[in-house]
Each structure stands twice: as C-alpha cells, then as structure tokens.
C-alpha cells in the first residue's frame, strides 16, 4: 500500500506540470487584454506599453511561463493585475469559501443520492424505481443557475426566510457557525446539491441493481442471511465505485460552481474565476485554475487510495 501511495504521489508531478502548462497557455489564448482591467479605456498607447512592461506582459510567452513557474516553485503565485493583491491570498481565501459550500452540498447530496439509488436499485422496475429515476434525471438536467434563481424568488423574495446573497452579515472573513451565517449557506448549498443527488442516485441504482442479480447474493439468501445483512454486502460491493463517483463530484462541486456562486454572490473560487475571466486577470486566472486542477488531482489520488483500502479485490501493484 505504501509503495502504491508513493508511486501515485510521484505520478502527480508530471500531471501537475502538464496542468500548469495548460493553465498558462489556455488563458493566453483567450482574446482580450489584461490591461483593460487596470487602465482607463482611453489610456494612450504609450501608457499601455509602459504598464505592459511593468507587469512583464511584453516578454515572450516562454519567458513569462518560466518566470511564473519559477515563482510558483518558491510559493509565489504573483499578484492580481486587477486588484494588486497577492494571488495566493485571493485564491486560497476563495477556495476555503467554495470548500465550505461544496462540502455542505456534498453532505446534502451524497446521503440522499445514495439512499434514493439504493431504494431504486432494490425496487428495480417498480414505481419507486421509476420515480427515483425521474427525480435523478430531473436533478441532472435542470440548469442549476435557473433553479438557484427560482429558490431565491421563493425563499428570499417571496417568503423572506433566507438571504439571497453573500456569506453572512460581515462577509466571509467574519464567518461564524451560527444561524446568522449558516442561513446564507442554505440556498446555494441546496442548489448545488441537486446535480450530484441525481448522479449519485443513478450510479448507486445501477450498481445496486446489478449486484443484486449476482450469484453470490442468491447464495447469501440461500444460506439464510437476513435481507438487511445481504444489503450490507451489496453496499460494500457498491462502495468502491460509488466512492470514486462521489470523489469526482466533490471536485466538480468545488470547481464547477461558477454559476451558483455568481447567482448567490458567494465569494468562492467560481465567483473569483468568473471575475478573473471578465477582467482577463491572467495571474489570478492561472492561479485559480491551477489550484482547482490540483484539487482534482488530489481528489483522484484520495479516491484511488480509499478504493484500494475499501475493496481488497482492487489490486494495485
């Protein structure tokens, strides 16, 4: 297990390098000028050139990349062109907020999705199965930004029960685990949870349905095992695959919530990314994408290791 872990960790290095090259190049391909964010639109060509030089944007791309990766290796992600603030502080602050949102959504989505999936898989072809399937397809298909706005209209605008935006009365820096702050989390977390509920439910349904038809299940029943005990075996067999799906979903929840964070004005990495895109804030874009990509890599690693730990049949040599 330890050697497997070490090998996987070593494999992360080329992946990280590839990710860094892609992040750097992708943001360079996009049309637009990062100086737009920091200069009046009518700044003269001479002033623009001076500013371009000041930010090192006049250098050839390979040189810019070398400087960026060199600084990165020393833990320096540079400064945002638009705000002048250090990228690391901006990104990690935002990722913390996104993580809070993503984990909250996962806490809602994974148990509900698993329960519904199991229920449907166990009751295959019954009305329960069809209802859960319909629900999960709806969850996967509904545009979550639309759902977010509908929830805002109902619960914020009409009923006045929950706030529609922000991370609490004093902003995310004064976050506290009290009702005043948690109420800000409810609507975005519920909205964000809808898609993974559908995906997890569909995955677990398929797994449970398949496993229940396997010979060993009949053998367990034949040995006189109770239904609950059999289901425990089924769950254990389904766990490895379900876990890998959930791990990836957590990654998506962290990085794929741009629209949700925009609708709810949630100060997370998606909101940060969206602003950085509109402002062509290259260092911030590169930093945010890199951190999110590395989070995916880390999630994959954790899931692989967890799978191996849970399911001894998964041989990693």
């Amino acid at each position, binding site marked *: 297990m330890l050697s497997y872990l070490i090998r996987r960790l070593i494999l992360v290095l080329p992946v990280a390098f590839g990710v860094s090259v892609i992040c750097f190049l992708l943001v360079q391909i996009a*049309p637009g000028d990062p100086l737009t964010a920091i200069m009046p639109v009518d700044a003269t060509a001479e002033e623009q050139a001076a500013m371009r030089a000041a930010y090192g944007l006049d250098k050839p791309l390979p040189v810019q990349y070398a400087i960026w990766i060199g600084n990165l290796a020393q833990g320096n992600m540079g400064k945002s062109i638009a705000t002048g603030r250090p990228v690391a502080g901006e990104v990690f602050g935002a990722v913390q907020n996104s993580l809070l949102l993503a984990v909250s959504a996962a806490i809602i989505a994974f148990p509900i999705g698993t329960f519904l999936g199991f229920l449907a898989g166990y009751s295959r072809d019954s009305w329960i199965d069809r209802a859960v399937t319909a629900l999960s397809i709806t969850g996967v298909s509904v545009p979550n930004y639309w759902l977010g706005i509908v929830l805002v209209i109902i619960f914020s605008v009409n009923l006045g029960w929950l706030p529609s935006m922000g991370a609490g009365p*004093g902003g995310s820096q004064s976050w506290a685990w009290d009702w005043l702050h948690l109420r800000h989390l409810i609507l975005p977390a519920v909205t964000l949870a809808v898609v993974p509920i559908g995906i997890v439910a569909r995955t677990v349904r398929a797994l449970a349905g398949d496993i229940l038809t396997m010979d060993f299940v009949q053998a367990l029943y034949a040995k006189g095992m109770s239904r609950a005990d059999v289901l425990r075996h089924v769950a254990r067999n389904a766990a490895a695959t379900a876990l890998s799906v959930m791990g990836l979903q957590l990654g998506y929840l962290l990085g794929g919530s741009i629209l949700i964070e925009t609708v709810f*004005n949630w100060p997370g990495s998606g909101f940060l990314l969206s602003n950085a895109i509109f402002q062509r804030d290259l260092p911030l874009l590169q930093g945010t994408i890199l951190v999110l990509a590395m989070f995916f890599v880390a999630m994959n690693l954790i899931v692989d290791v967890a799978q191996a730990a849970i399911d001894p049949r998964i041989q990693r040599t």
Partner: protein
Amino acid sequence: MSRFGKGFAAMTAAVALFCGSIAQAEGTLRIGMTAADIPLTTGQTDQGGEGMRFMGYTVYDSLIEWDLTSADKPSVLIPGLATEWSVGEDQLTWTFKLRPGVTFHDGSPFTAEVAVWNFDKLLVDSSEQYDSRQAAQGKSRIPAVASYKAIDDLTLEITTKAPDATLPYQLAWILMSSKANWEAQGKNWEAVAAKPSGTGPWKLEAFVPRERAELVPNTAYWDETRVPKLDKMVLIPLPEPNARSAALLSGQVDWIEAPAPDTIPAMQGNGFVISSNAYPHNWTWHLSRLEGSPWNDIRVRKAANLAIDREGMMPLLGGLMVPAKGFLPPSSQWFGNPTFDVKYDLEAAQALMKEAGFGPENHLKVKALMSPSGSGQMLPLPMNEFVQQSLAEIWIDVEFMVVEWNQMINLWRAGAADPAVEGSQSINFTYFIQDPFTGLIRHLDCNLVAPNGTNWGHYCDDEMQALFKKIKTTFDPVEQDAVLKQTHEKFVNEALFLFVTHDVAPRAMAPKVKGFVQAQNWYQNFSSITIEE
C-alpha cells in the same frame, strides 16, 4: 424582454407584497454596485465611473470638483480643495489657492506640499510614493500637466505643456491621498488600501475585498452641507443583474445600481423607487472616416440619423433612455443650437439616400462592430438589431461583427484602420462625455488618431481642429462654453456620429431611502440621504 426575464418579473410582482425584510441597522444604506470588486481604495480609483462615484468622491476630494447638488441642471465645476484658481499671462502657469483648515481622516493637514506629493504619486515613477495602480488610473487624466510646485502651504502652482484651458476639468479627476497615512502604513500602498485616508465626507471603516466596504461619516468634513446624515453606507459588489434585483426585493440591500430593465415594472409595482436622470453618457456608432468608408458621405450619415425611430426604441429599455438629438444630451450646457434636427423622418432619410445614389435596387452594405454586453453598453444586442432594422428601411444592409467586450475595447483602441477590425466601418461604443476632452475633443482630434489616441474613425478636419484649439485657449469659462457649443453644433450639423440614445443611470431603491438628488453626472452625492424607518 427575455422569457426568463418575464418570468422573473412576473413572479416577483405577484408575490412581493409578502416580501419579507431582513433586519438592518438604523441609518445604514446598503448599496448593490454593478462592480465585481470594491474599487481601489488608495486614492485614484479603478472600476470606471462607478469607482469614482462610490470610492472616489466619497472618501477623497480633488482640487476642483463637480457640483452634485442639483438634478435639474447640468453639473458644473466648483471649488473643492482649491478655493480659487487663475492662469497667468503666459497661459501656461496656473495658481491654485488651497482651502485652509482641511485635514485628512488621519488628522494630518492638506497642504500644497501634499498636493505636489500626490502628483508625484501619479506622474514620477522614480518617486518613493509612485503607485503604478493609481498611476494607471490617473496619469492619462492630466495630459496637460508639465510641472507643479508648492509656493507656500496654501498656494500651488501648476504649469501646463501648452495653453490648455481644460486643465480644471482634468484636475477634477485627481484625488488627494494622505501622505502622513501612507508613511504611517509603512509607505506601503497595499497597507494603505486597507486603511486609507482622504479628506472626503466619508471614511472607510471596514473593507473585505470582493465582498463589502463600510463607510462612516467624516463629521469634521470641511463642507458642512456635505457631512453625511446616515450612520453608515455599505457598498456590496453585485455584478449579476438578477442577483442585484433579488437582493433589493428581499431587503438585503436598500439600493441597486442599474436594475435590469425587465425587473423595473415589478419593482415599481411594489413601491420601490426608480431614480434616473440624464447624464453625460451616449450610445452611438462611431463612424470610420477612412478613405472608402461609406460614412464619408454626409448624405448617408444624415440619412442614417433620420432613419432611427428613437421613440420606438424606448419600450425596449423600459423607457429608461433619452433619445439622442446630438452627441451630447439635449440638457447639456454645451448642446448649442444645431441646425440639423436629429429625429425620425423616414421620407427625408430615403430621399437623402437616393440623392447619394442608393435605393431599393442598390443597397449600401456596411459592416458594424458591436459587443453583446459591456460596461455602459445598455442592451447592445436588441438595440443594435433595432438600428439594423431601421437602416434596412433606407437600403443600408448592416453586417455585424460581434466581439466580446474586452476584445471590443482592444479594437476600439486599435482604430478603424487596424486589420483586426476586419474592415468594420463603425463601432458601437458608449462614451463618458462629461468634460470637454472626454465629451468632444478625444473622439475627433487629428492628434489622437488611433492607435495613438481615441479617435477611432481617423476623422481629421481643419475647422474642427481650430475649434479644439480654441477650446483649449479660451480661458474665460463663459466664452469657453460658447466655443464648446459651437463645436457640438458642428458634431451634429455634420452628423459625425450615428446618434442613437443616452442612458439615464437608473437606480432602484427601497421607499425608505429619502433625500437623494440624482445629479446629471457620473458621480453622486450621498451625504443628503436618510433612511426613514
């Protein structure tokens, strides 16, 4: 109105009677801005007009300021940190008498030496206090300034590179930061950003990047009429229009900038107040005047201007527009009395097109640059389609080149001759037109032809150039106004742009917000506002 927008408006209208409100402190005004971040707090703000509005003229002052007290007449310049100013016989040396007894929020005095320090902050990159971020915002605003010096504590002298009577307008951009505070913060602008100090009527009390800024009154402000009546003003970046509307309707903010037009009926139906007023903004097609451009023919330009039913466009914007009668809004002090009446007259337009050699059998094809969204661009897609349909009535076939806003800015900077515009003969760009330079000169000056300046269309005309020179050399404000009128009359009489509309800076606010006077300006005065519980 989009299907989604209709749904949103209908749902909010149907149920907002039951709207719950969330508790808030008394005397606190919470504003949802369109900006995605808190504007730069160190002095010279970023985020365009919104930055100056909320973080500029609130926390800071300039030597000369805009009068923001009246909704009925256009804003004019008034004394700010300078009480009076005059130019010497050489027409280059200006003397400014500074206001005595003004202190920064940190208690340090405002003096001529501090003013010089502030100019160095923007213009002298070898100075200790040079700040590239503030310089990026401020340097281009004072192109006339050659040098400056403190004569004594309360006398400042500025010398211009050439005679330039528009200097007072240029100086209205430049905000004064505290030198003492910069020193107290370790001469570090990043530290100053968290704890800035100006002389303005508001002090920045708390600041969470991207989330909120809290301003409290400066009770020792030098102008007693502008000491804020509120306890606090909270600025919240809310760039997404529907999120802004929802925040207002659910009581999380009391005021939003630029509500989406399709949500306005719902807001008005539920007692929210929509405030708007003419201000120096226009929505035009800036025309290419390169050789071969069809817009070189004055008959075609006039015909296009006569073909647009601007009143018919109003429902598209919920009535929130001022139909253009020229480049400047009709209420502008520099509008003048142009002889060409910009109005909808299809017959006259068609006659002009026929005179120019076009007709049902011989259409004129033009290519036009536009963006699907962008700062100040209003609703560019439907509005441009409206213009396209209008021009089709006079046999002008418009092909659009649609580019994203950030790229649009680059193409605007590049100019009509740049290959990147792919032969486009116009660009739909909205303009900040508040002073003689931004309002008139920069668009058509031969010396500012793109890419070295902002004359996108490469227009160059001796008579216009003489007028621009006269604006800069007419130092008497009344006489200068007369020249500005004359200049604008030429803009209109020669139909130098496709004049379409002016924005009216709509903002929606809860009925408890009282005392706001929306000046005809990009900036506003928040000191008179109260919250009536």
